């Protein structure tokens, strides 16, 4: 089995989906000869032609609006938005159209489309290149939001997203695109959307994370557990919406303690939703208040100070000790 980086796993999934389904069409800015600014589509235009890997005019509204029409008329568009902060000119097409087409037309038309973009900070990029706004998408009824951590799940979940009958927002961990390598099967496979995975079973405390923060969380835990004897259960959400509440609640009922680590702004976010679900369904099992370590309710700072926004190892461990020592 070959070892792939995240960006290579994404490319592999796109390649296999285009081989399998002639209705898959990639559209976005600079995805052709350049292969996308992160090279996620490198070589695909050469392989599948300019009609299937389409460099569009520079317009997120045009890309996502056209994708709605393509999807409603039988295609499987996979749109690339270059950076997370640039999606908003096209957000109208997601919230007002893609997410509603099935209900609006009572099933006569649907929008099976995927919108991919790199998310999260830490690569010293410019403003609008580093946001973690999964909560905004997850708060939109009708969308699904997937945010894989590593290469294996990026491939399996992207293939599942392209097969999915509804619109899927697919966030890719920007600062780990090339930092993480994993063994990835060469063949076509899917992983279920809406299912979290227990990365490590444990009895003392549940730690929940996903996407880019999964790696920061793992690193912090590894360093901490080298000299502390705590039996941590680590959950990787993989999908933000629909949320796998069953896996989360079962785990918290077992451990009685929970730490949530996300990069998004704190208020009204994924961590807040998890805390709400846990108090609704596992309150009497809790031995400590749930703790969340998140980004701040600030805009993502410029590159000079972005590392102060992204949860650090110290903040993650402080959160862990807070929930353990309550």
């Amino acid at each position, binding site marked *: 089995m070959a070892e792939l980086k995240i960006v290579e796993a994404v490319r592999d999934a796109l390649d296999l989906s285009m081989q399998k389904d002639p209705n898959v069409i990639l559209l976005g800015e600079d995805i052709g000869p350049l292969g996308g600014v992160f090279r996620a589509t490198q070589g695909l235009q050469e392989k599948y032609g300019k009609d299937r890997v389409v460099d569009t005019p520079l317009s997120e*509204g045009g890309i996502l609006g056209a994708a709605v029409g393509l999807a409603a008329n039988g295609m499987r568009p996979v749109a690339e938005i270059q950076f997370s902060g640039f999606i908003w000119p096209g957000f109208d097409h997601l919230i007002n159209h893609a997410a509603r087409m099935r209900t609006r037309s009572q099933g006569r038309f649907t929008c099976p489309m995927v919108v991919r973009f790199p998310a999260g900070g830490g690569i010293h990029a410019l403003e609008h290149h580093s946001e973690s706004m999964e909560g905004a998408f997850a708060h939109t009824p009708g969308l699904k939001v997937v945010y894989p951590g590593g290469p294996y799940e990026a491939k399996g979940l992207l293939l599942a997203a392209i097969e999915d009958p509804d619109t899927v927002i697919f966030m890719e961990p920007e600062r780990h695109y090339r930092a993480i390598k994993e063994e990835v099967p060469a063949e076509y496979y899917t992983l279920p959307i809406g299912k979290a995975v227990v990365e490590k079973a444990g009895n003392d405390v549940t730690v929940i994370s996903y996407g880019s923060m999964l790696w920061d969380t793992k690193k912090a835990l590894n360093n901490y557990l080298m000299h502390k004897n705590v039996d941590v259960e680590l959950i990787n959400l993989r999908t933000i919406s629909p949320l796998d509440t069953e896996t989360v609640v079962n785990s918290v009922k077992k451990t009685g303690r929970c730490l949530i680590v996300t990069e998004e702004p704190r208020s009204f976010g994924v961590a807040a939703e998890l805390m709400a679900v846990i108090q609704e369904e596992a309150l009497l099992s809790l031995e400590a208040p749930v703790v969340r370590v998140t980004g701040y309710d600030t805009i993502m700072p410029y590159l000079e100070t972005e590392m102060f926004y992204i949860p650090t190892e110290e903040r993650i461990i402080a959160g862990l000790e807070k929930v353990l020592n309550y």
Partner: protein
Amino acid sequence: MEITEILVDQNGFPTEMFQVLDPEGNVVHQNLLDLVSIEQLVDFYKWMVKIRIADRRAINLQRTGQMGTYPSVYGQEACQVGSGLGLEKEDWLVPTFRETGTMWCFGVPLYQTLLYWMGNETGSKMPEDVNCLPIAITVGGHLPHAMGIAWANKRQNKPGAVLCSFGDGATSEGDFHAALNFAGQIQTANVFFCQNNGFAISTPRSIQTAAKSIAQKAFAYGVKAIQVDGNDVVAVYLAVKQALKEAKENHTPVLIEAVTYRLGDHTTVDNSKLYRADDEVTEMQRREPIARLKKYIEATGLWDEAKEAQLLEECKKGVDEIAEKALTHAKLDPKNMFTMMYAEMTPALQKQHDEFLKQ
């Protein structure tokens, strides 16, 4: 003038509106009028009358509390009939919200449109054999969707062009720019049909753009254009036909600006007396589409008062039956709001659905 000459690219800037019949019912281009049969002319007339009666009935349903807010098509019947009947079965219609007539002409049953304005989503479930997207309420948002649909047709070698209708206000939205730019660049079979009815609620056309015409905006995108008298049903029909032909044969998008006038209020909750003079409306009444065609078909002996009386009676009866069908239609099961969100309900939705049913 020949029919093949009516669409212009940036090299042939339009100086006057395309017209076949003037407001007095005089023939401007006999050779172009001859492209339409006598039966078609009478059919156009009947449809316009039928739509006006249906439109009045819809307003009446709102006024009597049996329907929600409704946007009247009064004054725009020529645009609606010319575009709706210009489409072929293989084509698509991507409508804005002021399209009662267009959708009806294209095959969307009128009772469904009434049901939609009554607030029942079933009204938007288009028949399987009618390629029509549901009504778009967001102004201009549906233009890129129309482009995407035509793009899918091109990719899948499906026949048919896509006619997207919208008003003058929509041309100020970024999506107008995005859609025409994409269509021009990717060369899709799109007809962008702007019914410039003079107003976006209260805002006059003059506030939307400093451009002399909306049609001329097409040239910036490498898209062909025509400005047509939107109260001349024959001119609208011929323009739409020619644009669809051009789009299908050459994958060349076309922008049609049909200049018309919204004789009614924006919707049933609007009061247009607050922002326009009665004199202006009276003058525009004189140019309205139905009277114009009636003058012509009466003058040529195709129509008389006896036929008129019979038509009015038939239309009234027909529209009453359709309204009754909408009024007595089964209410939407409210649990539909949960079950229709995704192909399969998410666990959270399932839970909310079950809680709702227990209430």
